[in-house]
């Protein structure tokens, strides 16, 4: 019997089959305990999916309000994963905890084998993120924004320029390197942010409502590119969206969260079957109800209003 070459498997493959026995499974667990392997056995074949994100009993309380209430889920390596839910369901709070911006009240998380609350830098190196609100510096040029990111992530100075040019080509901004970001439309900013998020070769890309305000052309272009990187580099994509067709079309797997609790998870097909719905939108509505949510306007929303009133001063 051959021993599995585990290190290679881990780094090169995302989902892999291994014709083997219980011994192989044990061996895998032993050598690679941080990978949180999920083993699904099917007729003598052990189907192994390495989880790149693993969340257990995660809870976040703000004073008396529980934003995230004891949730557990896993995201497989190389998966395109949709995290859906109505406004105020706890999506952004969860993303903030996963990306080290917020510390949880209780529960445990693992990102690429590391705990975001403790090994912050290791976790931060492993992901890229596109926030709900743009986080580019409007008063700098495209190239300056990219170079800043490269410096913060210690991207090798020798390959920096090449990598930046390559990414900008992919998002169709290569001819605008000297442009000020403030002259860009919303769609162009999004594309630039995606390029920036990919600059340091992240293993996971978080996208918090990335396609809000984008036209179908840009949205399509963006997803074609993301799927391509997902396939070629095995990069995991974790995204939230309010467009159900987008989730249906692109996600391998979906988790639906509401009132801080996970209420359903599965592939788009499974969710539709479970709720007897034709589309994911119907499935979503039957899971979360038709009631319109009133998200209390927090400091952020008030700031957003200020900002609109000031005509996007920054």
């Amino acid at each position: 019997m051959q021993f599995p070459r585990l290190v290679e498997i881990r780094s090169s493959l995302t989902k892999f089959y291994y014709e083997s026995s219980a011994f192989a499974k044990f061996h895998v667990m032993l050598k690679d305990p941080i990978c949180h392997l999920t083993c699904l056995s099917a007729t003598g074949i052990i189907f192994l999916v390495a989880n790149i994100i693993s969340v257990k009993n995660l809870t976040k309380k703000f004073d008396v309000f529980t934003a995230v209430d004891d949730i557990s889920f896993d995201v497989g390596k190389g998966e395109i994963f949709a995290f859906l839910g109505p406004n105020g369901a706890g999506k952004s709070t969860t993303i903030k905890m996963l990306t080290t911006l917020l510390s949880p009240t209780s529960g445990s998380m693992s990102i690429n084998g590391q705990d975001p609350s403790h090994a912050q830098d290791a976790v931060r190196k492993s992901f890229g993120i596109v926030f709900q609100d743009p986080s580019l510096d409007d008063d700098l040029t495209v190239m300056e924004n990219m170079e800043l990111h490269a410096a913060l992530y210690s991207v090798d100075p020798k390959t920096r320029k090449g990598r930046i040019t390559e990414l900008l080509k992919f998002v169709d901004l290569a001819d605008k390197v000297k442009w000020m970001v403030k002259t860009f439309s919303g769609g162009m900013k999004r594309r630039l942010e995606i390029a920036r998020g990919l600059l340091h070769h992240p293993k996971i890309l978080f996208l918090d409502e990335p396609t809000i305000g984008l036209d179908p052309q840009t949205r399509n272009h963006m997803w074609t590119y993301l799927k391509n990187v997902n396939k070629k580099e095995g990069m995991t994509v974790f995204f939230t969206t309010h467009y159900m067709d987008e989730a249906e079309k692109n996600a391998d797997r979906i988790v639906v969260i509401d009132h801080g609790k996970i209420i359903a998870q599965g592939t788009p097909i499974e969710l539709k079957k479970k709720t007897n719905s034709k589309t994911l939108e119907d499935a979503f509505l039957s899971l979360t109800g038709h009631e319109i949510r009133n998200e209390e306007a927090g400091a952020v929303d008030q700031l957003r209003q200020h900002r609109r009133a000031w005509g996007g001063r920054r």
Partner: protein
Amino acid sequence: MISLGNTGEHGEEEDNTMETIYTLWKRQVIKYFRSRSRIVGSLAQPLLYLLAFGYGFGSVFSKAGQGNYIQFLAPGIIAMSILFTAIFTGIEIIWDRQFGFLKETLVAPVSRLSIMLGRTLGGATVATVQGTIVLVLAMFVGFRFTNYSQVPLALLFMFLIAILFTAMGTAIASVLEDMQGFQLIMNFLVMPIFFLSGSLFPLSNLPFAMVIATRIDPMTYGIDGLRGVLGGIAQFGITLDLLVLGGITALFLAIGSYLFTKIQV
């Protein structure tokens, strides 16, 4: 968690603290020189103060036996423009936190302290440049150096004032959620710091309450030092000014860094 280095779990990771500080410093400086309208706009106020107060009170001041008022006033106005620029740069973090570049830096694998230091040094450099421009303007209005060899020491005072108030702005922005408290800060912190610092009037022969207030105001020592260095008239002595100002600056840098590392987005 305050740690200067890159606190990666893996030892092989390079420490990019210096590159982070330099990069963020450079960003502030580039942005400042790009925003010409902002430079010109923020020079109008100090110029107005110099002209209106300088010429308005000039004759009263000299009749009271205090000498040339412009000579006395200019260091105060230079410090004022540094104070405003510095505190605004610090407070800008409130905006930046939600809609700006700050979030991008907070998820980057660099220590919060290096982000804070880069931003603060950048903001302080900008404020010092702004102060230097006001100094040049003051010379057109009639201000004269007593000793040109003191210029480096003057720049040091200006830079210390700038760091102090950028750090103070950062500390405030780290605990405020939105811009609503801004007016409060202007009226109850920034303006008192300016008016109680002896920027406009001599610190001698004041009522007791004013003596206490002016001695508590950290800007008092900055202005007094600047006055001593630029015009040769320091109340407390340059050494004492430098020690007090340096100490308070270090203190606020520590407070600002601490609060900044505690920011949750």
